[in-house]
């Protein structure tokens, strides 16, 4: 049986095909975190209700994330494509929650 030869890669790869990532490209990568941040003004029951409404989560899961926001200052709610992350952040902000999307480096 012939052994499969492992190709040896050069130290420096040519830059062929490496393009600046466009918005269109980024939209299809699930590389964005939707994060909710703590503040002293949003009521805990309200935050739980918003998570249930926006994500369709059962109460227990929504409460878990609400408590994480409350105790740890933030909670990562989901990891999505740019387009979906924008959608969720818009939904959360429309309920006046402090939510952002961040690149998952």
């Amino acid at each position: 049986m012939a052994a499969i030869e492992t190709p040896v890669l050069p130290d420096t790869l040519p830059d062929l095909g490496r393009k600046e990532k466009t918005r269109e490209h980024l939209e299809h990568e699930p590389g964005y975190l939707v994060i909710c941040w703590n503040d002293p003004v949003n009521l805990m029951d309200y935050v739980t209700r918003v998570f249930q409404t926006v994500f369709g989560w059962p109460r227990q899961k929504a409460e878990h994330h609400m408590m994480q926001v409350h105790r740890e200052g933030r909670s990562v709610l989901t990891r999505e494509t740019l387009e979906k992350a924008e959608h969720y952040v818009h939904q959360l902000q429309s309920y006046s929650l402090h939510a952002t999307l961040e690149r998952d480096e």
Partner: protein
Amino acid sequence: MKFLQFSEGRFQFRLETAERDMLLQIIERYPLIPAAYHRASLGESTRELEATQKLLEEALEGQRQETRRQIKAVIEAGDRLQRKGRGWVLSLGREEIQWLLQVLNDVRVGSWLILGQPEELREQPLKLAEDKLPFLWAMEVCGYFQMTLLRALDS
């Protein structure tokens, strides 16, 4: 404001006349949060995130105008806020409660911003200039209405 019952797809609440007046005043204040308050991201600004910020601001503005139109239509519909005896009865569907919660929380958070975003809301007494007192009032009243609506949804 008291939750009375859920009947024929609507939640019914009893309000005293003073509570009804307060609710209408709060709705008139919506939206109170400045458009620039919400940020798409706290991270380093990139071309993609700047585009996202613009999209979110436009979407939020459109959504707030729509919510304002919807909630005013509900309140002004003759069968939703009716005088009963010495008080009022407010009847809302589940989706309409969500709209009202959005309105109330916007005014609550917007008032908190105007108050200087105090970290400790239970600090007594909050040292406030006289012209800021209506915003403390609005923040507390919104919280009171929100809790009643949330308890009704959970019941």
